[in-house]
């Protein structure tokens, strides 16, 4: 039996205007998200990968209700998140936490790290001051920070240490869903390993759900149950981790997997490589958004956009190459 999804996104579109030049030259528009449909199931880890600038962080912010002015709908536990107000919004803010991508600008520079981590507890008035202080100790220990770190300011920390501060803060309220935007990108492998193991442990203990955004395919492979691959603001493939890594269908996913660096100086960087123009959300191509770089493109790919189609149970792909069952999207 399928359990109901914890969070659903339907038909999400998001544009950003970029001011251009001085004298009213035409404004360019960044088409950051171009029709995202996504379900996050209760208790799972959904990995989200894709090229830089493809819209991962934008999607994360929209799901966390940190961004307005988008098209489409987001529901959490069955309720439309844009309609949340007052107490229900507070509850949503408690249950859905974000670990931000940039550990440098996401921490308030004027607050000591201890207060930053404790702040959610203070704001939501959870426990007595003594209990909060104790919880602070627990949280810092959990992410591998030392007690003497609590009294320092963010600028006194290294990149990886700041990332762990953001993580501790997100864990403070025992959330249901954590949207993790590159949460381990600044960590060296041994601490990365500790933090990733911690993610799994907490998930098991507390039944957490994660949306895990990362460009590191090894990390995503380790942490995720299912993986979604994004390209220019669209999901191009979605499958169980096994299927995605062992039998990827989209040519884009295949290229991504082939480009991953191997920690072995004897092996040279793989030659498989994406040719053609860089994906440009300002000038979206016609047809399948990937076709300008696709080594296997057919005629139809240049004119029509393929729909995300379930080709095998649980394995969705947006590509005309595999089956006639893939329809053209309106």
């Amino acid at each position, binding site marked *: 039996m399928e359990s109901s999804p914890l969070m659903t996104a339907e038909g999400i579109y998001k544009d*950003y205007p*970029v*001011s*251009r030049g001085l004298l009213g030259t035409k404004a*360019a528009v960044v088409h950051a998200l171009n029709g995202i449909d996504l379900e996050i199931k209760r208790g799972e880890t959904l990995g989200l*990968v*894709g*090229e*830089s*600038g493809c819209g991962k*962080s934008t999607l994360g912010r929209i799901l966390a209700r940190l961004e307005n002015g988008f098209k489409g709908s987001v529901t959490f536990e069955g309720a439309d998140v844009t309609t949340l107000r007052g107490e229900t919004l507070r509850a949503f803010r408690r249950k859905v936490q974000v670990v931000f*991508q*940039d550990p*440098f*600008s996401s921490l308030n520079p004027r607050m000591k790290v201890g207060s930053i981590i404790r702040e959610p507890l203070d704001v939501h008035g959870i426990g007595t001051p003594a209990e909060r202080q104790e919880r602070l100790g627990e949280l810092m220990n959990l992410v591998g920070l*030392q007690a*003497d770190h609590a*009294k320092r300011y963010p600028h*006194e920390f*290294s*990149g*990886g*240490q700041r990332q762990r501060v953001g993580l501790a803060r997100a864990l403070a309220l025992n959330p249901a869903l954590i949207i993790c935007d*590159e949460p381990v990108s*600044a*960590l*060296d*492998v*041994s*601490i*990365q*390993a*500790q933090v*990733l*193991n911690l993610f799994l442990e907490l998930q098991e203990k507390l039944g957490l759900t994660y949306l895990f955004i990362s*460009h*590191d395919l*090894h990390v995503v*492979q*380790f942490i995720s149950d299912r993986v979604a691959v994004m390209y220019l603001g669209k999901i191009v493939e979605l499958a169980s981790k096994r299927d995605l890594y062992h039998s990827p269908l989209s040519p884009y996913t295949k*290229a*991504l997997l082939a*480009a*991953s*660096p*191997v*920690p*072995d*100086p*004897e*092996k040279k*960087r793989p030659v498989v*490589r*994406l040719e053609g*123009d*860089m*994906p*440009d959300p*300002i*000038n979206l191509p016609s047809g399948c958004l990937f076709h300008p770089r696709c080594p296997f493109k057919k005629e139809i790919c240049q004119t029509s956009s393929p729909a995300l189609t379930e080709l095998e149970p649980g394995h969705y792909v947006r590509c005309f190459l595999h089956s006639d069952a893939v329809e053209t999207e309106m």
Partner: protein
Amino acid sequence: MQREKPLLKIDGLTVTFDTSEGVVHAVDDVSFEIDRGEIVGLVGESGCGKSVTALSILRLLPVPPARISGRSIRFKDRDLLQLSEDEMRTLRGRSISMVFQDPMTSLNPVFKIGFQIREMIQTHFPDMDKTAVEERAIELLRRVRIPSPESRMAAYPHQLSGGLRQRVMIAMALACDPELMIADEPTTALDVTIQAQILELVQELQNDLGMSVLLITHDLGIVAQTTQRIVVMYAGKVVERAETAAIFKSPCHPYTQGLLRSLPGRYVEIEGKRTLPSIPGMVPSLIELPRGCSFRDRCDQAFERCEQAMPPLMPCGEADHFVRCWRYAEKEH
């Protein structure tokens, strides 16, 4: 054969910070060299002093709370520790450039990125005319694979994704054909395809212009495929130093060995439970470093001597392979 003089030679660099909690020993007696046209990787646990080392080379740490000492940091025939602030300023960005780990150190949030890149070029090439500057700026953005560079010139830093911002910084660091580029985690926000292209670009500049690079990264895949030599740091000290191939083939320091075991590609699944091998324990506080080797609490090979004194860097294995570990001491005498 006489080895060419290194481009950069750091000798005994030591950096401390005064904090309300005590003195933080961030970097302790660090020495290494970078040859002309060489890419050296600097790796080590989060908080071990990589960024502080990099910032000290360019003298960008606020003094106080920082205190920098050391025998010398030689760049060509000058000691950077002795230069005046004016002399340092002409060097920065021109001869030695830096890609900062914190994007907001190099990008000013209130100016469009086009303006900032043009500024960078104009400062160092005051004679270049306006159109040439504009063209060079756009060309730089194109080189780091930013699509629609003309439109992106008009964006403010906050309007860029993490990876775009990182590429803008790389473009700025390359703006003046530096002799040495210090790149502090330059590709953490980049996906693998762009990362590969950027690293290729760096290698191209290394080959064509003889640029040297100090590449700070925690990604051992990148280190393996890009660098010629590696310096491993732990708790403020260099604990191992060798050619890249040697480090991967026969790592000597237990910490380096642990690092290589913790690669996310190498996880084990036991009865449906995933775990990644990691090095248990935590780095010691840099305020009160324990006596002896600072890694010994986490080391599975520690013995008596490790509690008594910090080992010096000593040769191990092949030529030019050095390690700070007592296990290699017997072999000496």
